[in-house]
C-alpha cells in the first residue's frame, strides 16, 4: 500500500513536471496556426512562459484581417485539476462600438475539478457584468448579462440576442 502511494505520488510529480517543462510557447505558436485557419490572428504579442502559466501581453486581435482590438493581458494556466484562461483590459475597435462594448475589464474562463460539468465564465466590461457556463456534455452555452439601464439602448443591437428571465437578467443560450 505504501509502495502504491509512493508510485502515485511519483506519477503526480512527474505529470506536474511535464506541465511545468511543457513547451508552452511552441504549443501556443502551433495553436496560432490553427486559429489562422479560422481567420483569427493574435498579432504583435509578447509571449512569456511563466512556469505553469503562459502569458501574452498586448495582443492585437484580427478577425478576417479586420482589426478587432487589443488585449493587454491574456494568461493561460493548466494545473490539471484547475485550468483557466483569463483576459484583462481588452480594448475593442471603436469602429465596432455599435455592436460590441468598447472595453472589457476582465473575462475569466475556468475549468476545475470541483465543477466538472461546467466550464465557467465570468467577466465585466463597459456593457455590464457577465457570468455563465459552457456544458461540454450537453453542448450548451449559457450566458447571463447584468446591464445598466443606459447601456441597454447603447448596445441594443447586441442585446437583441438576449432574452430577459423572470429576475430581469438578460440570458443568452446557444446549443452547438
Amino acid at each position, binding site marked *: 500500500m505504501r509502495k502504491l502511494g509512493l508510485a502515485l505520488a511519483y506519477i503526480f*510529480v512527474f505529470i506536474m513536471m511535464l506541465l511545468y517543462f511543457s513547451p508552452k510557447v511552441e504549443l501556443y505558436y502551433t495553436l496560432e496556426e490553427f486559429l489562422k485557419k479560422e481567420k483569427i490572428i493574435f498579432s504583435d504579442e509578447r509571449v512569456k512562459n511563466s512556469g505553469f502559466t503562459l502569458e501574452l501581453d498586448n495582443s492585437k486581435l484580427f478577425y478576417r484581417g479586420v482589426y478587432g482590438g487589443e488585449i493587454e493581458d491574456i494568461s493561460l494556466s493548466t494545473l490539471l485539476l484547475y485550468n483557466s484562461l483569463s483576459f484583462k483590459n481588452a480594448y475593442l475597435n471603436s469602429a465596432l462600438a455599435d455592436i460590441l462594448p468598447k472595453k472589457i475589464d476582465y473575462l475569466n474562463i475556468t475549468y476545475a475539478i470541483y465543477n466538472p460539468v461546467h466550464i465557467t465564465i465570468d467577466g465585466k466590461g463597459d456593457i455590464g457584468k457577465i457570468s455563465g457556463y459552457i456544458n461540454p456534455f450537453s453542448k450548451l452555452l449559457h450566458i447571463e448579462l447584468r446591464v445598466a439601464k443606459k447601456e441597454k439602448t447603447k448596445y441594443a443591437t447586441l442585446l437583441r440576442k438576449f432574452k430577459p428571465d423572470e429576475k430581469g437578467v438578460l440570458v443568452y443560450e446557444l446549443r452547438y
Partner: protein
Amino acid sequence: MNLDINRYSKTAVTLLILAAIAKAISLGSIYFLNRSGVSQTVDNSYTMPYKSYRFSKPFGVVDVVVKSEDVVKVNQPVYNLSSLELKAIYKTHNGGFIVALDNTKGKRSVFIKMLSEYNGYTLKELTNEKATFERNGQKYKLEFKKKKSSALMAEPIARPKTQKYSDDVIRAVSKSEVHKYTKDFKSIWKSISIKEVKQNGKIDGFKVTSIKQGTIFDKLGLKKDDIIISVNNKPMKSYASAFKIYKDVKTMTSLKITVKRDNQTKDLEYEIY
C-alpha cells in the same frame, strides 16, 4: 541515520531522473511544434484620398452630350436642397438674396447673397418660386416648403430628385444618409447582403447576393449579382479592405465603386455632399 540519507538521496535521484525525462519529452516535442508565431501585416502605407477630378472643367470645356434624351437629362441633373428651408426671396436690381433655415444647424436663419457660396453651393439664380444653387457643375434647387412634401423636406440632407440615371453618370449621395449607415452597422446588413468571391483560394471581390429596394445601396445603382471588385481604385481583396472603406467613407467626398456586371466592368461614381 545512514538509512535515512540513503532513502532521501534515492528519492532525490528518482525525482531528478523524472525531471530529466519530463524535460527530454518537452524538448523532443518542440521538434513537432511551430517555433515561430503568426502575425498580421497591416498596410500602413499612406494613400492619397480619392477625388473625382474632371479635367475638362478648368478649361471651360463642356462634356459632349451623347445620343439619347436620358443622358442629356443626366448631364444637368437638378437636385432638391432639403438641408435648407427657404423662407424668403428678395430680388434686387443687382441680384438679391434669400433667407433660409439651415436644418443641419438647428434651424438657424441664414442669409445667402446672389453668387455667394454656402457650404460649397453657389447661389446662381433667383425666381419668384425658387433659388437655384450650383456645385461642381450640378444644379440644386431650393423651393418654398409645400405642405404635402413636408415629410421629405424635414430630412436634413440634399436629396437627389428621383429620376433614372444612366450607369455612366456621377450620382449624388447625401453625407447624412451615408452617416446614418456608418452609425448603425446593423442597418447595412438589413439593406444589402454580400458574399466573398474567391479565386484560387483568395478573395477576389464581394458579390451582392441581395439588395433591399429603396435603400441607399439600391439608389447607388448596385444590383443583385454585381461583384464589387474595387472601391476608389482600391481592390477589394480582403475583409480588411472592405472594413477600411466602411471606416473611411465618413470623410470621403466622392466614391467610385467598380463592379463586374454581366462580365463587364462598370464604374459607379458618386459625389457625397
